[in-house]
């Protein structure tokens, strides 16, 4: 495979937006030391779309929690936009979880505006700002609906709008479509690409779905099983803007297959 020598996409040549510097995470569980990941280092270029894949249980989500400032790494550092990440800062880094996690007593509008409410903005102002992002995710007609009235895909759109509402430079997504059915998942993937192209965010996208990873990303960071290290940083040199058609190309298949082989072999190693 010669993917690493292929010319990088324009996005990858930009300066780093997020720098992960020899990051390690260890925790104690019932008196036993668990190394989640060890000495991870990689840069995420500004405005790029970078995926993190790896076998299940490899610590992808813990890595994302570190990136979001929600858990402290055992050693190493994360620099985002030039300053270290130590606490959650939704103005700098937005987060979208696997579970949309909407507040059931708030309308779509108020859920999206919730981070602004926490910041102390007035009702009128926050609704105006929220409206912009509700439109971006295509839910303007549902502004006054409550979460239980929405489908799974729509709820996740609300969650994306909420992650974006403070206009952060960086958006972290932790398996955001894992709970959705395949059809919705495909549609949401295209949706996220459109939003990314419109908003020019830096996106770090954790997934275990390789098709999704190759379809969306400029670069895929492949992690090993626990304790996770970086196996490869694979540049996805497929042309943009991408449509579903790209999935039928030979190049797409080869990239996806390449990642699959790496992760598959890990599985057998572990079982032995």
């Amino acid at each position, binding site marked *: 495979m010669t993917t690493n020598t292929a010319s990088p996409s324009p996005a990858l040549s930009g300066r780093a937006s997020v720098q992960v510097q020899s990051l390690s995470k260890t925790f104690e569980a019932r008196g036993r030391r668990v190394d989640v990941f060890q000495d991870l280092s990689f840069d995420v270029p500004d405005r790029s779309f970078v995926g993190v894949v790896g076998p299940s249980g490899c610590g992808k989500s813990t890595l994302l929690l570190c990136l979001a400032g929600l858990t402290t790494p055992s050693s190493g550092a994360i620099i985002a936009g030039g300053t270290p990440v130590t606490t*959650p800062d939704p103005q700098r880094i937005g987060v979208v*979880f696997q579970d949309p*996690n909407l*507040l059931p007593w708030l309308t779509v509008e108020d859920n999206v505006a919730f*981070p602004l409410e*926490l*910041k102390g903005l007035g009702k009128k102002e926050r609704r105006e700002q929220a409206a912009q992002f509700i439109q971006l995710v295509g839910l303007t007609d549902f502004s006054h609906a*409550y979460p*239980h009235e929405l489908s799974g895909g729509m709820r996740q759109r609300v969650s994306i709008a*909420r992650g974006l509402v403070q206009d952060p430079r960086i958006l972290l997504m932790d398996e955001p479509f894992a709970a959705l059915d395949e059809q919705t998942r495909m549609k949401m993937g295209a949706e996220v690409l459109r939003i990314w192209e419109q908003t020019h965010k830096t996106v770090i996208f954790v997934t275990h779905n390789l098709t999704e990873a190759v379809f969306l990303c400029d670069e895929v960071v492949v992690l090993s099983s626990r304790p996770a290290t970086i196996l490869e940083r694979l540049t996805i040199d497929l042309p943009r803007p991408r449509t579903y058609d790209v999935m039928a190309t030979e190049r797409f298949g080869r990239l996806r297959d390449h990642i699959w082989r790496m992760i598959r072999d890990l599985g057998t190693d572990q079982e032995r």
Partner: protein
Amino acid sequence: MGTKIKWALLVAALLALWELIPTVGWINRIIVAPPSAILAALVQDPGAVLMHTNITVLEAAAAIGIAWVIGLTAGVVLGSSVRAFRFLGPLLESAYALPWVVLYPLAVLWLGFGSTSKITFAAATAIFPIVLSTAAAVSMVEDRTLLLGRALGATRMQMYTKVLIPFALPQIVSGLRVGAGLAVIGVLVGEMLLSVGGLGFMISYYRSTFDSGHVYLAMLLGIALAALVNGAIARAERRIGWWNQASR
């Protein structure tokens, strides 16, 4: 015939029967006071009835207010600590079941015959269900919700006011309703046992003078007060709890 008219006729018939039974002498009018005697008791000295009602309403309101504030705060604090709740929860459940009314004479001894002893006693009995239901509701808020709050930038205080309490609110309010009911009962019981005023005092005083009209009047007012408090909170409960029903 409209339903309303049917109901009015039914009530009128029952009232007539009620009036008839003691008047004819089937049952002694000391045991069952006829409606006319109750009305007479009200008309005889409406100022006194109003005064006693006022005392009970104020005592109940104070007891409810104190029980809500202390119970809610203690419940939120207790519910946010898994360990404390696991330890103190069962203890409180047992304490809730104790016959606290036997301690009421002590409250009078310490705080006097006036309103303070009633308010203290009623508030103390009302706090239990409030603390327990608030703590249970808060402890059930899931970790993912707390993580979300942090990720969206909630401060420690906002975690309580904007996430935890709203999430737990339907269950909290039902605890508040039960607590308010107990507070009203506590005030009435206290007044009946040892006091110098209030609807409970009216009941026990006029009972000793065999004035059933006044006893019945005070009983009806006490029941009406309890129903009013319960009804108002139940209404609020339905409005707050809708999403809880809908999202499950």
